């Protein structure tokens, strides 16, 4: 009985009050939304505790004040209160709804990206909560997520800026394709070079102690510290044209580091080597040296032990290093602008386009580059954790 009285009250409210400033269509939608909410509300009043019911009413009031009164958009309000009222008993979904409402109404220009990242965050938090992870760890994770948020939003945003057509047009630009090929080729060669020299160095650094080890460690990290342009200038000063080393290289081997693939590779090796060496050192340090001793007492030479015991057990860490070094090499731009503007690698080409034609011309190419790199990155990560992970990475 009381249901009908309340329904009639809501009806009268709409007819008498809202009709004065809402058109009839909007008013009708609002009325039906309110009626749905009313009936669900009565149901909640009967089944939920008073505190939860108060919470339900508060939520309704906030939505009303915010969307109806503040943003003055009765149709959105109708939509959201129906969703709100029906999802109220499902707190997980309600969370997504709140994120959705917040992204569409507050972060309107970036709502898709914002919603995606926040939904991901929310999903992880819910997972942690269900696993009864400690509150402190959830808070530390949340604080850290701010950083990931700053990283993800621009990348997601630019990827949704262009239609697939414009990306396809940029695929047809032969100069861009050439530049991407250059990038893939040089960064792969650089990574192989770093691998060949870096892994033995890392093994030695993990196994031996010597006076001055700290100095060698700082030398390994030096490229991270030196600004990229400075690295380029330094390489040109020692081996560029009209320097003793440069003259020797060009007269003896007919190679020049300025404006050549050799130059690009040297610059990339210079800036990217620390990542592989660092992760390989930590990987080797994690291996119990007694495993290597056992291998030697069984008759394996130092070399066999290195290849059959140490390398397989450190492979996960080394592969992480490969991924980081390759990524660093392919994204290098600062030193290349100084040492080898031509042949153009993709990041240099993009910068060139940006300077010449501006932002909107560069966007599709940038997206293409992101997609290429991201795809390779994902494949490498997959290899790291599945085929390699299963076979070698154990504790």
């Amino acid at each position: 009985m009381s249901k009908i009285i309340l329904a009639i009250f809501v009806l009268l409210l709409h007819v008498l009050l809202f009709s004065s400033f809402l058109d009839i269509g909007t008013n009708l939608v609002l009325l039906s939304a309110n009626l749905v909410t009313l009936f669900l509300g009565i149901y909640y009043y009967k089944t939920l505790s008073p505190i939860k019911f108060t919470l339900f009413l508060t939520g309704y009031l906030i939505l009303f004040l915010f969307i109806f009164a503040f943003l003055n958009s009765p149709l959105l309000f109708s939509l959201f209160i129906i969703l709100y009222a029906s999802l109220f008993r499902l707190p997980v979904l309600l969370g997504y709804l709140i994120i959705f409402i917040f992204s569409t109404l507050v972060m309107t220009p970036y709502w898709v990206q914002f919603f995606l990242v926040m939904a991901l965050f929310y999903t992880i938090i819910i997972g942690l909560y269900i696993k009864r992870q400690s509150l402190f760890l959830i808070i530390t994770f949340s604080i850290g997520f701010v950083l990931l948020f700053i990283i993800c939003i621009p990348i997601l945003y630019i990827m949704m800026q262009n239609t697939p057509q414009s990306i396809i047009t940029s695929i047809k630009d032969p100069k861009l394709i050439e530049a991407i090929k250059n990038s893939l080729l040089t960064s792969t060669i650089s990574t192989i070079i770093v691998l060949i020299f870096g892994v033995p160095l890392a093994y030695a650094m993990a196994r031996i102690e010597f006076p001055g080890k700290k100095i060698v460690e700082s030398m390994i990290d030096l490229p991270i510290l030196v600004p990229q342009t400075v690295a380029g200038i330094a390489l040109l000063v020692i081996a560029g044209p009209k320097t003793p080393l440069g003259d020797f290289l060009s007269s003896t081997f007919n190679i020049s580091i300025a404006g050549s693939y050799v130059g690009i590779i040297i610059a990339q090796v210079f800036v990217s080597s620390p990542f592989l060496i660092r992760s390989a050192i930590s990987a080797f340090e994690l291996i119990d040296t007694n495993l290597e001793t056992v291998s030697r007492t069984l008759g394996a030479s130092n070399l066999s032990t290195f290849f059959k015991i140490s390398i397989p057990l450190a492979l996960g860490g080394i592969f992480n290093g490969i991924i980081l070094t390759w990524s660093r090499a392919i994204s290098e731009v600062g030193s290349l602008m100084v040492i080898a503007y031509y042949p153009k690698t993709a990041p240099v080409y993009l910068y060139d386009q940006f300077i010449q034609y501006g932002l909107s011309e560069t966007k599709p190419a940038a997206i293409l580059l992101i997609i290429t790199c991201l795809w390779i990155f994902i494949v490498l990560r997959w290899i790291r954790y599945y085929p390699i992970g299963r076979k070698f990475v154990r504790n």
Partner: protein
Amino acid sequence: MLEIKNISRVWGNFSLKNISLDISPGEYIVLLGPSGSGKTLLLSTIAGVYTPDNGQISLKGKDITSLPPQKRFVGYVFQKNYLFPHMSVRQNIIFGMKHHGYTKKEMSAMTGYLRNLLNLSSILDRHDTRFLSGGEAQKVALARALAIKPDLLLLDEPMSSLDYDNRNSIIETLKHVNKELKLTTIHVTHDITEAKSLAHRIITIKNGEITVLKTRS
């Protein structure tokens, strides 16, 4: 068989001082001492992990003082089993034989022999050594060391990380192996009962010096 003459070596503030030992073929020696007494360092020196500063080690009449571990034919079993985690049980056992140039036929014959000797039939075909129990893993480690037909077997507290049942089963296994193979063995421990149940001769070591040599009555 194994002759150690006056070896000494300094590691920071610890040293092995003038150790001499003469061990006859097939003898089971237990090296008994508290932790920090230098028993493991002595064993590692015999295995070739460290070279002594002075003195001489000879095995089967051959001077091995400066040989690296891979050329000494010494089987070494540690406190932890140190099975190679990226290899199966069988691959662990044949690892040493591969490096000593055994043929496939010889390897499978030896594996079969060790399976019977150490009762490995239920675990020999396991792929993942992580799922072995402590005793099983230690048996595989022992099989791996025996597979290269070592002249000398070194056991560094092989039972200290095992529970009571596993410990007894390894003690029985070691007795059986010693009886079957007549293999000269040096077994390091700090457990006197373990020492008494296995040793032909007990040697005690303290602060890097050998203190008592006694033969089991």
